[in-house]
């Protein structure tokens, strides 16, 4: 199995590509942050939502730094762990585009597809920027 995957680049790239491409289509249409969905998920606890939003934003620089370092140093294990953590946190606040990028990165970390890390990381940075913007707006309100 393993040998087959190594010999066939098509096979290797196929799975993440289909995943990302299909999700790309959706992700781009999606809000960077679906607050309503997040609130429903938390049982309508707005206080908790704003609390975890703050927590998320507070921890974000550390996680992003960790991912960036892992990508730069091409440390796939480190990438997998950091991306996994981000994925979980993002899912909690229904930041679907961020979650999807984090998941893709986690997959690349798992499968060691180093060449795809950098572009995906850049896409992630974009998602997060959008996310930050969307969070700031209501906050300023």
């Amino acid at each position: 199995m393993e040998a087959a995957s190594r010999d066939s680049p098509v096979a290797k790239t196929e799975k993440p590509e289909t995943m990302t491409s299909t999700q790309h289509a959706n992700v781009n249409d999606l809000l960077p942050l679906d607050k309503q969905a997040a609130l429903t998920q938390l049982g309508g606890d707005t206080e908790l939502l704003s609390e975890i939003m703050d927590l998320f934003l507070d921890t974000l620089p550390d996680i992003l730094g960790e991912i960036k370092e892992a990508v730069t140093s091409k440390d796939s294990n480190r990438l997998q762990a950091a991306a996994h953590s981000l994925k979980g946190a993002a899912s909690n606040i229904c930041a679907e585009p961020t979650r999807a990028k984090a998941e893709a990165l986690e997959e690349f970390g798992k499968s060691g597809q180093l060449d795809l890390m950098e572009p995906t990381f850049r896409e992630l940075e974009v998602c997060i920027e959008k996310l930050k913007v969307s969070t700031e707006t209501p906050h300023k309100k």
Partner: protein
Amino acid sequence: MTEAATRILVVDDNPVNVRILTRSLQKAGYEVSEAYDGFRAVDIATEVLPDVILLDIMMPGRNGLEVCSILKAQPSTSHIPIIFVTAQSDPEEVVKAFTAGGSDYVSKPLRPAEILARVSVQVRLRKAEQELVSRNEMSENLATELAKTNEELALLSRVDPLTKLLNRRAWGEAANQEYDRARRNNTEYGIIMMDVDYFKRFNDTLGHQAGDECLKKVAAAVTTASRTMDIIGRYGGEEFVILIPEADLGGAHIVAERIRTAIWELSIEHPGSEVDTVVTASLGVASGDGSVPLNRTISQADDAMYVSKKKGRNLVSTSQDTFEPPEKKCIQPSTTRKSAVGENSTGAKVLLVCANQADATRFEQDIASECGQVFRVSSDDAVLKRAMDHNPNVIVIVDSSPQVNSTKCIRSLKRNAVTNNMPIVVIAEDVDVDNKQSLIDAGADECLTQECTKETIARCIRLLYRVDRVQLDLLESYQWRGEHSRSLNLLVDLCDVLASNSNLEEALQRIAVTAAELACCRRISIMLPDAERKYLRIVESIGISDEVIEKTKIPMGSAVAGKVYETGSTKHTEPDTQAISVDQYHGTKVFASIPLICVPIGFESRIVGVLNLTDRADDKPFTDQESEYVELFCKISGSAIHGILSEMSRDEARDSIMLGLAKLAEHRDTDTGKHLDRVTQYCQMLAEELAKSKKYESQIDEAFMADLERAVPLHDIGKVAIPDSILLKPGKLNEAELSVMKTHAEMGTATIRSIIESAPGVTFLEMAAEVANFHHEWFDGNGYPCGLRGQSIPLAARIATVADVYDALTTKRVYKDAFTHERSSAIITELSGTQFDPDVIEAFLGRENDFATLAHELADDDPCESKTVTHGLTDQPALIEQE
């Protein structure tokens, strides 16, 4: 415990997740601990022992799966349920989580509602588990407690509650073990039997409570005076028995003497005692080894104890003392002296002590013309022995030569209990005043000189003979009075015991013992008619060998006992006369050479048996007074035995009435069918076979077998309540009829229960009630009426059901033909474990041939006649399937 006190540990490296979990859980009332990595998670879990752990799988450092494995491996944390938190529901990941020991999982994004639901399930499970553990612990404690109680109960049933000594049965067991050891090791052992003197009077004068206290103290004294290895038991009432391991007669005697002294020194006041002012005991000692049965040694010790009683109590006697003349030693010879002479003085027996031949011849002639018999001794050494042997009325000492020292003779005679009352005349060569006085002081009754005339000597002897006679009469009257009160005491004791006893064996034993004591006999037998009332057989005896007991079979109306039984009047036999005729029937000389008295037991119109008494001390004939007492005693015993026998026959009558009732229930016709006989015998076979196995050997004892034999026939007694239209209906029963049929189990139990109420304590009825109630229960719980399962169905019922079904299969019924043994056996075996107890089936297979034989031998006379069988087993699939 409320849920507020339930603690949850939340483990996640991401603060967002931790926050969500913590907040939701806290809102639901849980206490929450948090850990942000795997290492802390293990530490906190070990420290706070949470009720549930929510554990993230993917964490840097030590991941969730590792944490889980560590916690599951620690005994303190292994039971804590772990809910994994996964970011994705990757099936592989989920499997890993469960494999590591996780109880559940939730996936991200975290939804508080779902998490709370899952946590709550785990909390409930955890609580239930804890409850179960504590219940198990509790039931384990209960089981331990129960075992302890059982042990105590066992101990109680081994220990006499009053004295804390072994009871008779437990003593017997322990003594038998010791006996076996003695036999193996070829060593001797001693037996001490002990009886507190005049104990009944103690109770009568001071009350039973004081009596109990006294027995306690006596028991304690016995224990202290014995060695730790000695086995002490309360043999009954105030009787104790001690086995002294590895001791000969001398050794056991020392222990007995120590016990006697210890009891005496307790100084418990005893106003009713004739021996002393305090409580005393009489003891008997015997020793034995492996060559003699334990029972014989016990009875030798018992005999020795009676010797102590007769010798005057507060004494220890050994089995060697048994054959010495008993207490009446000093009186008996006097009686003989009296009977040896007639009314006139010439009948006097005289012992002449004379060393000089010429003098002897002269005095012998002088005396002989005046007196009856003359015995002579020629030296003072032999005087005492001859005096004891011949019981003279007067002793004449001729002090004329150095071989005879009259003073020495007198002293030795006066010092002996048997001879000290015998009148003494001294004839000396010269008798001066001083000389005479010193002889009189020594104990002589008269002094004569050698020169005295024949008439003087004769007159003197006549006078002294009269003195002796008066003395003897006086003694005899004392003796008679003593005997009288002793005998009355014995009779009163006996009445007391017999009135409260309903066990034939015990009553007979007591009668024999009392008779032995009353008549001072060493050989006693009680004979009762056998079942056919053709012969008298020995049912209880003392001093008679088993062989003789076995052989003795006296035809009614023949021999001494047979005639006594028929005529109802006492017979004395003298040696070598009628005794010879006894010999012809016995083939033994038991009673041939010594006096025997044979007394009817009971009143003239209602003789229940005879009592034979013989082998008296000194072969003395029975006096009228003694006969009268023995006869009175036999009348009392007779009514007691009659009472017990009629109670027994009442029991038998009740049993047979119930059996008749059972047959009636089975057949609605008392004189047909052998179904019950067969089933009963099948049950006996199964029980015998089961008893061979370790599992059942203790449960199935003789009593169980006896109860089973009587209980099984009643198993279908409830059918009396089933209408004929159902019971005897040819062909299959419909649902409604079947349910009526099924009520017979409970009906039967109710019937038997009502009998038990009027006759409580009849053990077989208890078993009968069980068998009636549960013989349609199935081993797997699918039977009726209670749906009991496995071992909770009483053993007797598990046995009976196999026997009953086997019989139903192998015989013709209104609804089926008879099957062959092979076919029936195959059907029954097939149902092992479902309908039947596999152990019973195994027993059945072990006796299969016997079953087949019995089925054949006891087959119904006309197997085509189906009226002898009824419904009752139509619910058995074994039968229905084959229809």
